[in-house]
Protein backbone atom coordinates (compact mmCIF):
# COMPACT_ATOMS: atom_id res chain seq x y z
CA UNK A 1 0.00 0.00 0.00
CA UNK A 2 2.89 2.38 -0.62
CA UNK A 3 1.56 3.61 -3.90
CA UNK A 4 0.95 7.28 -4.53
CA UNK A 5 -1.58 8.92 -2.28
CA UNK A 6 -2.08 11.86 -4.58
CA UNK A 7 -5.73 11.07 -5.24
CA UNK A 8 -6.56 12.51 -1.88
CA UNK A 9 -4.99 15.40 -0.09
CA UNK A 10 -5.00 16.68 3.44
CA UNK A 11 -6.58 20.11 3.17
CA UNK A 12 -4.78 23.16 4.47
CA UNK A 13 -6.84 24.87 7.12
CA UNK A 14 -9.01 27.63 5.68
CA UNK A 15 -8.59 31.00 7.27
CA UNK A 16 -11.82 31.49 9.18
CA UNK A 17 -11.99 34.93 10.84
CA UNK A 18 -12.67 34.84 14.55
CA UNK A 19 -16.33 35.76 14.56
CA UNK A 20 -17.21 33.46 11.66
CA UNK A 21 -17.97 29.78 11.67
CA UNK A 22 -17.63 27.03 9.13
CA UNK A 23 -20.95 25.23 8.46
CA UNK A 24 -21.66 22.05 6.58
CA UNK A 25 -25.21 22.15 5.26
CA UNK A 26 -26.83 19.08 3.69
CA UNK A 27 -30.34 18.62 2.33
CA UNK A 28 -32.67 16.00 1.01
CA UNK A 29 -35.62 17.48 -0.84
CA UNK A 30 -37.89 15.36 -3.06
CA UNK A 31 -39.69 18.21 -4.87
CA UNK A 32 -37.62 19.50 -7.86
CA UNK A 33 -38.96 23.03 -7.68
CA UNK A 34 -38.30 23.43 -3.97
CA UNK A 35 -34.90 21.80 -4.23
CA UNK A 36 -33.90 24.29 -6.92
CA UNK A 37 -35.03 27.22 -4.79
CA UNK A 38 -33.13 26.05 -1.75
CA UNK A 39 -30.00 25.26 -3.77
CA UNK A 40 -30.12 28.73 -5.40
CA UNK A 41 -30.23 30.32 -1.99
CA UNK A 42 -27.32 28.27 -0.70
CA UNK A 43 -25.24 29.13 -3.78
CA UNK A 44 -25.17 32.70 -2.51
CA UNK A 45 -23.89 31.83 0.94
CA UNK A 46 -21.49 28.99 0.30
CA UNK A 47 -19.98 26.51 -2.12
CA UNK A 48 -21.64 23.39 -3.45
CA UNK A 49 -19.24 20.54 -2.71
CA UNK A 50 -21.56 17.64 -3.52
CA UNK A 51 -25.00 17.47 -5.15
CA UNK A 52 -26.79 18.23 -1.91
CA UNK A 53 -23.97 19.39 0.36
CA UNK A 54 -22.77 22.96 0.84
CA UNK A 55 -19.87 24.41 2.82
CA UNK A 56 -20.42 27.94 4.11
CA UNK A 57 -18.23 30.35 6.10
CA UNK A 58 -20.66 32.74 7.76
CA UNK A 59 -20.97 35.36 10.42
CA UNK A 60 -23.61 34.76 13.04
CA UNK A 61 -25.98 37.29 11.46
CA UNK A 62 -25.52 35.81 8.00
CA UNK A 63 -26.19 32.34 9.34
CA UNK A 64 -29.40 33.51 11.00
CA UNK A 65 -30.45 35.30 7.83
CA UNK A 66 -29.81 32.17 5.77
CA UNK A 67 -31.83 29.99 8.14
CA UNK A 68 -34.67 32.46 8.18
CA UNK A 69 -34.79 32.49 4.39
CA UNK A 70 -34.45 28.71 4.14
CA UNK A 71 -37.34 28.27 6.54
CA UNK A 72 -39.66 30.03 4.08
CA UNK A 73 -38.76 27.60 1.30
CA UNK A 74 -38.72 24.42 3.30
CA UNK A 75 -41.61 22.02 3.88
CA UNK A 76 -41.27 20.21 7.18
CA UNK A 77 -43.35 17.17 6.19
CA UNK A 78 -41.16 16.16 3.26
CA UNK A 79 -37.79 17.92 3.43
CA UNK A 80 -34.72 17.39 5.52
CA UNK A 81 -32.03 20.03 6.12
CA UNK A 82 -29.00 19.59 8.34
CA UNK A 83 -26.60 22.24 9.66
CA UNK A 84 -23.30 21.18 11.15
CA UNK A 85 -21.11 23.92 12.60
CA UNK A 86 -17.42 22.99 12.74
CA UNK A 87 -15.07 24.38 15.36
CA UNK A 88 -11.51 25.37 14.48
CA UNK A 89 -10.40 22.18 16.19
CA UNK A 90 -12.53 19.76 14.17
CA UNK A 91 -12.05 21.82 11.02
CA UNK A 92 -8.33 21.20 11.24
CA UNK A 93 -9.02 17.45 11.11
CA UNK A 94 -11.29 17.52 8.07
CA UNK A 95 -10.14 15.29 5.23
CA UNK A 96 -11.17 15.85 1.64
CA UNK A 97 -10.92 13.05 -0.89
CA UNK A 98 -11.43 14.26 -4.42
CA UNK A 99 -12.63 17.63 -5.69
CA UNK A 100 -13.46 20.36 -4.87
CA UNK A 101 -11.05 21.57 -2.15
CA UNK A 102 -12.31 22.69 1.25
CA UNK A 103 -14.15 26.01 1.03
CA UNK A 104 -12.21 29.15 1.96
CA UNK A 105 -13.42 32.51 3.12
CA UNK A 106 -14.57 34.49 0.07
CA UNK A 107 -12.49 37.47 -0.94
CA UNK A 108 -12.66 40.56 -3.11
CA UNK A 109 -12.84 40.14 -6.87
CA UNK A 110 -10.99 42.14 -9.51
CA UNK A 111 -12.25 41.79 -13.07
Amino acid sequence: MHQSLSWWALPTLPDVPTEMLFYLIAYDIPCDKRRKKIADLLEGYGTRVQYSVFECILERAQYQELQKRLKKRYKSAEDSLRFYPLSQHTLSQVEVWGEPPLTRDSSSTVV
Partner: protein
Amino acid sequence: MKSLYISQQGCYIALQQELLLVKQQKEILAQIQLPHLEQVLIFGKSQMTTQAIRACLWRDIPIVYLSRQGYCYGRIVAINRGFRQLARYQQELSLGERLSVARAIVAGKLSNSRTLLQRYARQPNRESLRLTVQSLDYLIDKARRADSIEQLLGYEGAGAGSYFSAFSECLQGNDFEFVARTRRPPGNPVNALLSFGYQVLWNHLLALIEIQGLDPYWACLHHSSERHAALASDLLEEFRAPFVDSLVLWLINKRIINASQDFEHRDGGCFLNNSGRKKYLKSFVGRMEETVQNRDGEPQPRWDLLLQQVKAFKQFVYQPSLGYCPYSIR
Protein backbone atom coordinates in the same frame (compact mmCIF):
# COMPACT_ATOMS: atom_id res chain seq x y z
CA MET B 1 -14.26 44.23 3.08
CA LYS B 2 -15.28 42.13 0.12
CA SER B 3 -15.43 44.37 -2.87
CA LEU B 4 -16.10 43.76 -6.52
CA TYR B 5 -13.88 45.84 -8.82
CA ILE B 6 -14.82 45.99 -12.48
CA SER B 7 -11.72 47.40 -14.13
CA GLN B 8 -12.23 45.85 -17.57
CA GLN B 9 -14.29 47.76 -20.08
CA GLY B 10 -17.56 46.59 -21.59
CA CYS B 11 -18.61 44.21 -18.86
CA TYR B 12 -22.22 43.41 -18.15
CA ILE B 13 -23.32 42.59 -14.62
CA ALA B 14 -26.49 40.60 -14.19
CA LEU B 15 -28.34 39.07 -11.29
CA GLN B 16 -28.85 35.33 -11.05
CA GLN B 17 -30.64 34.35 -7.86
CA GLU B 18 -28.14 35.15 -5.08
CA LEU B 19 -25.22 35.76 -7.41
CA LEU B 20 -23.91 38.61 -9.51
CA LEU B 21 -22.60 37.38 -12.85
CA VAL B 22 -19.95 39.48 -14.58
CA LYS B 23 -20.09 38.82 -18.31
CA GLN B 24 -18.18 40.06 -21.30
CA GLN B 25 -19.93 39.13 -24.54
CA LYS B 26 -20.99 35.54 -23.85
CA GLU B 27 -18.19 34.73 -21.44
CA ILE B 28 -18.76 34.69 -17.68
CA LEU B 29 -15.75 36.35 -16.04
CA ALA B 30 -16.80 36.03 -12.42
CA GLN B 31 -19.60 34.97 -10.10
CA ILE B 32 -19.96 36.90 -6.87
CA GLN B 33 -22.08 35.86 -3.91
CA LEU B 34 -24.34 38.73 -2.89
CA PRO B 35 -24.60 37.89 0.83
CA HIS B 36 -20.79 38.22 1.13
CA LEU B 37 -20.45 41.40 -0.96
CA GLU B 38 -19.91 44.80 0.63
CA GLN B 39 -19.46 47.18 -2.29
CA VAL B 40 -19.16 47.39 -6.05
CA LEU B 41 -16.72 49.71 -7.82
CA ILE B 42 -17.12 50.16 -11.55
CA PHE B 43 -14.20 51.81 -13.36
CA GLY B 44 -15.19 53.15 -16.78
CA LYS B 45 -17.80 51.74 -19.11
CA SER B 46 -19.49 48.66 -17.74
CA GLN B 47 -23.19 48.11 -17.24
CA MET B 48 -25.27 46.77 -14.42
CA THR B 49 -28.82 45.62 -14.94
CA THR B 50 -31.60 47.22 -12.93
CA GLN B 51 -32.28 43.86 -11.29
CA ALA B 52 -28.65 43.66 -10.16
CA ILE B 53 -28.69 47.27 -8.90
CA ARG B 54 -31.91 46.64 -7.03
CA ALA B 55 -30.52 43.49 -5.40
CA CYS B 56 -27.51 45.53 -4.23
CA LEU B 57 -29.70 48.30 -2.81
CA TRP B 58 -31.82 45.71 -1.08
CA ARG B 59 -28.71 44.35 0.59
CA ASP B 60 -27.31 47.79 1.38
CA ILE B 61 -24.37 47.36 -0.98
CA PRO B 62 -23.27 50.73 -2.38
CA ILE B 63 -22.35 50.93 -6.07
CA VAL B 64 -19.68 53.46 -6.99
CA TYR B 65 -19.19 54.73 -10.56
CA LEU B 66 -15.67 55.94 -11.28
CA SER B 67 -13.66 57.01 -14.28
CA ARG B 68 -10.97 54.61 -15.41
CA GLN B 69 -8.54 56.74 -13.43
CA GLY B 70 -10.51 56.41 -10.22
CA TYR B 71 -12.34 59.75 -10.20
CA CYS B 72 -15.71 59.23 -8.51
CA TYR B 73 -18.70 60.36 -10.61
CA GLY B 74 -21.29 59.25 -8.13
CA ARG B 75 -22.70 56.40 -6.17
CA ILE B 76 -25.92 54.52 -5.64
CA VAL B 77 -26.88 53.98 -2.02
CA ALA B 78 -29.97 52.53 -0.45
CA ILE B 79 -32.77 54.93 0.52
CA ASN B 80 -32.44 54.25 4.23
CA ARG B 81 -29.00 55.87 4.18
CA GLY B 82 -30.74 59.23 3.91
CA PHE B 83 -31.74 59.65 7.51
CA ARG B 84 -28.69 61.08 9.19
CA GLN B 85 -29.22 61.27 12.90
CA LEU B 86 -25.49 61.16 13.50
CA ALA B 87 -24.93 64.03 11.10
CA ARG B 88 -26.87 66.30 13.43
CA TYR B 89 -24.48 65.54 16.27
CA GLN B 90 -21.61 66.13 13.87
CA GLN B 91 -22.83 69.63 13.15
CA GLU B 92 -22.97 70.48 16.82
CA LEU B 93 -19.23 69.99 17.34
CA SER B 94 -17.35 73.13 18.31
CA LEU B 95 -14.51 74.74 16.42
CA GLY B 96 -12.06 73.67 19.14
CA GLU B 97 -13.16 70.05 18.96
CA ARG B 98 -12.73 70.07 15.21
CA LEU B 99 -9.29 71.62 15.51
CA SER B 100 -8.22 68.93 17.93
CA VAL B 101 -9.14 66.25 15.38
CA ALA B 102 -7.47 68.17 12.55
CA ARG B 103 -4.26 68.34 14.62
CA ALA B 104 -4.38 64.59 15.29
CA ILE B 105 -4.95 63.85 11.60
CA VAL B 106 -2.04 65.97 10.35
CA ALA B 107 0.31 64.69 13.05
CA GLY B 108 -0.79 61.14 12.28
CA LYS B 109 -0.23 61.55 8.57
CA LEU B 110 3.23 63.07 9.02
CA SER B 111 4.21 60.43 11.52
CA ASN B 112 3.17 57.58 9.21
CA SER B 113 5.15 59.20 6.37
CA ARG B 114 8.08 59.44 8.74
CA THR B 115 7.85 55.75 9.68
CA LEU B 116 7.80 54.73 6.02
CA LEU B 117 10.96 56.75 5.29
CA GLN B 118 12.62 55.49 8.41
CA ARG B 119 12.30 51.91 7.21
CA TYR B 120 14.19 52.81 4.05
CA ALA B 121 16.65 55.00 5.94
CA ARG B 122 17.98 51.91 7.72
CA GLN B 123 19.71 50.88 4.51
CA PRO B 124 23.28 52.24 4.08
CA ASN B 125 24.02 55.49 2.23
CA ARG B 126 20.68 57.05 3.04
CA GLU B 127 21.89 60.05 5.01
CA SER B 128 19.45 62.45 3.31
CA LEU B 129 16.49 60.28 4.31
CA ARG B 130 17.55 60.62 7.92
CA LEU B 131 17.57 64.41 7.55
CA THR B 132 14.03 64.34 6.19
CA VAL B 133 12.97 62.16 9.11
CA GLN B 134 14.32 64.82 11.45
CA SER B 135 12.49 67.63 9.71
CA LEU B 136 9.27 65.59 9.83
CA ASP B 137 9.80 65.12 13.58
CA TYR B 138 9.95 68.88 13.94
CA LEU B 139 6.79 69.40 11.89
CA ILE B 140 4.87 66.69 13.79
CA ASP B 141 5.66 68.50 17.01
CA LYS B 142 4.53 71.81 15.50
CA ALA B 143 1.32 70.27 14.14
CA ARG B 144 0.39 68.89 17.56
CA ARG B 145 0.43 72.44 18.93
CA ALA B 146 -1.00 74.35 15.96
CA ASP B 147 -3.79 76.74 16.87
CA SER B 148 -5.51 77.22 13.53
CA ILE B 149 -6.43 75.16 10.49
CA GLU B 150 -4.34 77.49 8.28
CA GLN B 151 -1.24 76.79 10.34
CA LEU B 152 -1.93 73.06 10.19
CA LEU B 153 -2.29 73.12 6.41
CA GLY B 154 1.04 74.94 6.28
CA TYR B 155 2.82 72.27 8.30
CA GLU B 156 1.14 69.57 6.27
CA GLY B 157 2.26 71.14 2.99
CA ALA B 158 5.82 71.56 4.24
CA GLY B 159 5.84 67.97 5.46
CA ALA B 160 4.48 66.59 2.20
CA GLY B 161 7.08 68.56 0.24
CA SER B 162 10.07 67.17 2.07
CA TYR B 163 8.52 63.71 2.29
CA PHE B 164 7.97 63.41 -1.45
CA SER B 165 11.44 64.65 -2.32
CA ALA B 166 12.79 61.88 -0.08
CA PHE B 167 10.30 59.37 -1.53
CA SER B 168 12.16 59.34 -4.86
CA GLU B 169 15.23 57.97 -3.10
CA CYS B 170 13.30 54.89 -2.05
CA LEU B 171 12.70 53.89 -5.68
CA GLN B 172 15.05 51.25 -7.03
CA GLY B 173 16.03 50.80 -10.68
CA ASN B 174 16.10 53.40 -13.41
CA ASP B 175 12.75 52.85 -15.10
CA PHE B 176 10.77 55.17 -12.87
CA GLU B 177 11.62 58.77 -12.22
CA PHE B 178 10.03 60.90 -9.59
CA VAL B 179 11.00 64.46 -8.81
CA ALA B 180 7.94 65.90 -7.18
CA ARG B 181 4.29 65.11 -6.69
CA THR B 182 2.19 66.29 -9.66
CA ARG B 183 -1.52 65.77 -10.02
CA ARG B 184 -4.47 66.82 -12.16
CA PRO B 185 -3.08 65.40 -14.35
CA PRO B 186 -0.32 63.22 -12.90
CA GLY B 187 2.86 63.91 -14.87
CA ASN B 188 4.63 60.56 -14.81
CA PRO B 189 4.03 56.87 -13.93
CA VAL B 190 4.84 57.24 -10.22
CA ASN B 191 2.39 60.09 -9.87
CA ALA B 192 -0.18 58.15 -11.87
CA LEU B 193 0.13 55.23 -9.43
CA LEU B 194 -0.13 57.50 -6.39
CA SER B 195 -3.15 59.40 -7.72
CA PHE B 196 -5.00 56.24 -8.69
CA GLY B 197 -4.22 54.65 -5.33
CA TYR B 198 -5.47 57.65 -3.34
CA GLN B 199 -8.66 57.76 -5.40
CA VAL B 200 -9.42 54.10 -4.83
CA LEU B 201 -8.80 54.38 -1.10
CA TRP B 202 -10.78 57.62 -0.89
CA ASN B 203 -13.78 55.88 -2.43
CA HIS B 204 -13.56 53.01 0.02
CA LEU B 205 -13.53 55.45 2.90
CA LEU B 206 -16.46 57.34 1.45
CA ALA B 207 -18.49 54.14 1.23
CA LEU B 208 -17.67 53.26 4.85
CA ILE B 209 -18.55 56.78 6.02
CA GLU B 210 -21.92 56.45 4.28
CA ILE B 211 -22.56 53.01 5.72
CA GLN B 212 -21.80 54.20 9.26
CA GLY B 213 -24.32 57.02 8.87
CA LEU B 214 -21.85 59.90 9.11
CA ASP B 215 -22.14 62.99 6.96
CA PRO B 216 -19.29 62.80 4.43
CA TYR B 217 -19.59 66.54 3.73
CA TRP B 218 -18.80 67.53 7.26
CA ALA B 219 -15.08 67.50 8.05
CA CYS B 220 -12.44 68.83 10.44
CA LEU B 221 -9.38 69.57 8.32
CA HIS B 222 -10.46 69.80 4.69
CA HIS B 223 -12.81 72.33 3.31
CA SER B 224 -16.14 70.85 2.27
CA SER B 225 -18.12 71.92 -0.72
CA GLU B 226 -21.12 70.59 -2.58
CA ARG B 227 -18.74 68.61 -4.70
CA HIS B 228 -16.17 67.55 -2.17
CA ALA B 229 -16.89 64.92 0.47
CA ALA B 230 -14.22 66.30 2.79
CA LEU B 231 -14.56 63.77 5.60
CA ALA B 232 -13.23 61.06 3.26
CA SER B 233 -10.25 63.32 2.56
CA ASP B 234 -9.70 63.86 6.29
CA LEU B 235 -9.66 60.16 7.06
CA LEU B 236 -7.52 59.38 4.00
CA GLU B 237 -4.54 61.34 5.34
CA GLU B 238 -3.35 58.81 7.90
CA PHE B 239 -3.61 55.94 5.39
CA ARG B 240 -1.74 57.52 2.45
CA ALA B 241 1.76 56.41 3.41
CA PRO B 242 1.02 52.97 4.86
CA PHE B 243 -1.60 51.83 2.34
CA VAL B 244 -0.79 53.58 -0.93
CA ASP B 245 2.79 54.92 -0.90
CA SER B 246 4.25 51.70 0.44
CA LEU B 247 2.28 49.65 -2.10
CA VAL B 248 3.53 51.88 -4.93
CA LEU B 249 7.14 51.43 -3.75
CA TRP B 250 6.61 47.68 -3.60
CA LEU B 251 5.07 47.50 -7.09
CA ILE B 252 7.98 49.44 -8.55
CA ASN B 253 10.86 47.94 -6.58
CA LYS B 254 9.65 44.37 -7.13
CA ARG B 255 9.24 45.19 -10.85
CA ILE B 256 5.61 44.12 -10.85
CA ILE B 257 4.52 47.23 -12.66
CA ASN B 258 6.23 48.04 -15.92
CA ALA B 259 7.02 51.63 -16.90
CA SER B 260 6.61 51.04 -20.63
CA GLN B 261 3.65 48.62 -20.71
CA ASP B 262 1.30 49.65 -17.93
CA PHE B 263 0.77 53.36 -18.63
CA GLU B 264 -0.71 55.57 -21.30
CA HIS B 265 0.11 59.20 -22.04
CA ARG B 266 -2.72 61.49 -23.02
CA ASP B 267 -4.25 64.88 -22.26
CA GLY B 268 -0.87 66.13 -21.11
CA GLY B 269 -0.64 63.56 -18.33
CA CYS B 270 0.25 59.98 -17.55
CA PHE B 271 -2.34 57.40 -16.49
CA LEU B 272 -2.56 53.70 -15.78
CA ASN B 273 -3.87 51.72 -18.74
CA ASN B 274 -6.02 48.57 -18.64
CA SER B 275 -3.21 46.20 -17.65
CA GLY B 276 -1.71 48.67 -15.15
CA ARG B 277 -5.03 49.32 -13.46
CA LYS B 278 -5.70 45.63 -13.10
CA LYS B 279 -2.23 44.96 -11.68
CA TYR B 280 -2.63 47.78 -9.18
CA LEU B 281 -6.08 46.65 -8.05
CA LYS B 282 -5.00 43.02 -7.73
CA SER B 283 -2.05 43.94 -5.52
CA PHE B 284 -4.13 46.43 -3.56
CA VAL B 285 -6.79 43.81 -2.83
CA GLY B 286 -4.15 41.24 -1.96
CA ARG B 287 -2.56 43.61 0.51
CA MET B 288 -5.85 44.75 2.01
CA GLU B 289 -6.82 41.14 2.63
CA GLU B 290 -3.61 40.30 4.46
CA THR B 291 -4.22 39.96 8.15
CA VAL B 292 -2.59 42.34 10.59
CA GLN B 293 -3.15 42.92 14.26
CA ASN B 294 -5.73 45.54 15.01
CA ARG B 295 -5.83 47.82 18.04
CA ASP B 296 -7.28 45.08 20.24
CA GLY B 297 -4.48 42.74 19.19
CA GLU B 298 -6.79 40.58 17.09
CA PRO B 299 -5.80 39.41 13.63
CA GLN B 300 -7.99 41.14 11.04
CA PRO B 301 -7.62 41.96 7.36
CA ARG B 302 -6.26 45.46 6.66
CA TRP B 303 -9.75 46.41 5.47
CA ASP B 304 -10.77 46.37 9.08
CA LEU B 305 -8.34 49.18 9.91
CA LEU B 306 -10.31 51.50 7.63
CA LEU B 307 -13.57 50.57 9.29
CA GLN B 308 -12.02 50.97 12.74
CA GLN B 309 -11.00 54.56 11.99
CA VAL B 310 -14.42 55.45 10.61
CA LYS B 311 -15.89 53.98 13.80
CA ALA B 312 -13.33 55.88 15.89
CA PHE B 313 -14.48 59.10 14.25
CA LYS B 314 -18.07 58.13 14.94
CA GLN B 315 -17.15 57.57 18.59
CA PHE B 316 -15.57 61.02 18.66
CA VAL B 317 -18.83 62.54 17.38
CA TYR B 318 -20.72 60.90 20.22
CA GLN B 319 -18.11 61.82 22.83
CA PRO B 320 -15.90 64.66 21.60
CA SER B 321 -14.05 64.94 24.90
CA LEU B 322 -12.35 61.59 24.22
CA GLY B 323 -10.72 62.91 21.06
CA TYR B 324 -9.76 61.07 17.91
CA CYS B 325 -6.71 58.86 17.59
CA PRO B 326 -5.47 58.30 14.02
CA TYR B 327 -4.13 55.02 12.70
CA SER B 328 -0.39 54.68 13.07
CA ILE B 329 1.89 52.07 11.49
CA ARG B 330 3.37 49.69 13.99
